[in-house]
């Protein structure tokens, strides 16, 4: 079984928003919903960096843990999906999510939240028919053997999607080639001891 993951290489992202557009187009998401967003830090400064964020399909997903209706489930591929028939729009998943992924269309009075919408890793969601699935959750590219459109269309291949091991291998190789002293996960206190560069060299 695969463990599907997204990874955005912040050193490659050029803030073109292609992923945002590709996602909207592939999934026909409701008006006002943008499953993927691009965040730029220190825009215009020397330390500028951009990163594309959506649902990261966490292993220990906080949204799943706090949902009062238990509407989330994890597929065999490690993709976090939710059932819109069970969602009540309480917003708890949004409070808990580290990435601001859950969004709610505002269709009723008093700012009441509609049914939550988030990135599905282009894997659709629970529905009776294909049409219903597309209507509710958007494309199911995984069922067609394809990866999420955002990553597939990323012009600089900053956004990677796929099995965690493959994604990590690609990124590790990039890191080795860039020659960082302490690997890419600079915040990781293990980075220097793990010696990612050595690992990558051994793997070829």
């Amino acid at each position, binding site marked *: 079984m695969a463990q599907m993951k997204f990874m955005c290489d*912040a*050193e*490659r992202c*050029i*803030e073109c*928003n292609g992923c*945002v557009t590709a996602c909207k187009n592939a999934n026909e998401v409701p008006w*006002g919903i*943008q499953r993927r*967003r*691009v*965040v*730029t*830090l*220190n*825009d*215009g*400064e*020397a*330390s*500028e*960096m951009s*990163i594309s*964020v959506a649902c990261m399909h966490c292993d220990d997903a*906080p949204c799943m*843990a*706090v*949902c*009062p*209706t*238990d509407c989330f489930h994890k597929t065999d591929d490690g993709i976090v999906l939710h*059932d819109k*028939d*069970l969602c*009540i*729009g*309480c*917003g*708890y998943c*949004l*409070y*808990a*999510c*580290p*990435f*601001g992924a859950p969004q709610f269309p*505002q269709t009723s009075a*008093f*700012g*009441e*939240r509609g049914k939550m919408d988030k990135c599905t890793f282009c894997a659709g969601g629970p529905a009776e028919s294909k049409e219903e699935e597309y209507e509710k959750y958007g494309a199911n590219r995984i069922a067609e053997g394809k990866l999420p459109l955002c990553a597939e269309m990323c012009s*600089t291949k900053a956004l990677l999607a796929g099995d965690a091991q493959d994604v990590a291998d690609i990124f590790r*190789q*990039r890191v080795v*080639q*860039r020659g*960082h002293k302490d690997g890419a996960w*600079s*915040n990781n206190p293990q980075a220097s001891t793990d010696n990612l560069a050595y690992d990558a060299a051994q793997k*070829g």
Partner: protein
Amino acid sequence: MNLLTAQAPAAVPRSGKGLALGIWRFIAVALVLALSLAFAQVAVAQADPDREMTTAAPGITADQWRQVRSGETGPNYRDSRHDSNYNLINSSGETWRHIRNRWVSPFGLIAIGATAALITLFYLIVGRKDLEAPRTGRLILRWSLMMRALHWTVATLFLALALTGLNLLFGKFVFRTLFGDAVWAWMIAASKLLHNYMGPIFGVLLVIMLVSLIKENIPKWHDWEWIKKGGGMIGKKHVDAGFANGGEKAWYWILASVGLLVVASGFVLDFPNFDQSRDTMQWANVIHAVGALGITAISLGHIYIGTLGTEGALEAMTTGYVDETWAKEHHNLWYEEVKDQTIPEEEVAARKSSGTSAGPSATRTS
């Protein structure tokens, strides 16, 4: 392909020459495969470093990830989502999750369960507090129709809010497995809708009720005595009490403080269209849950004392009248004030059936 098909028949005679040819062919194929793989490897490894160096942005430093982690956004922070007021990483989300799931949820259940168990135990051991003297048959108006209507409306809303709230916190552990998704989906959606729409009504009525009862609930010194003696709930001790006794006043002030806090935090959660941040709503949620669970636990005590626990208490809030004996035993100071306003049972019954409004003009209406 031609080579393979053309030479295939040659391998049929099992001569030494045929075998040698087979081996050579195997080696050739293996070599081609190995070389092509090696070249591919070299191609990947060699072509990329230059490209990687030219395409990659300047190195992202640990400071930048630290900035992300801290949640600070700065003036040059950009987000492509049109309505977003979020930072890149919601670092307080995990804290909220742990407070809610590890502390509030289990300890809320323990608080309510323990209170219910203690009350049951108290009832089994001590039992109902009966009137010590026989009833005199003369009644005093304690609660006006307006107050009773207000009390029962607030009480009904309170129970409905408590049950729907408990369902939102604990329902998924019980009813989803019990009834299946179809019923559960309906149940939880109704819970949320009722909770969100009844909440504000409850809040407004609670404020009205608190305002109209504040005069009777101003703490006095004898209330402290009342609380120290446990209200004389056990045994035959008598403690002084005015219109409201120490326990009632304590309940009043719990509602006036924690209750209003629950209402206020509920408003923050109920109307997410005022651009309040995720962090604000996380805190509002924790305050709301802790306060509401606490009040629900305490309300069990109020409900017990008002129904099963005290003889004559429930009829005060249903009929509005209490017996003279009840007033003397439970609210002696109040009884001293109103003892000249007693009316015989028969007169009250007659008034009720003739439909005129109850009570002599001097009885309190608030």
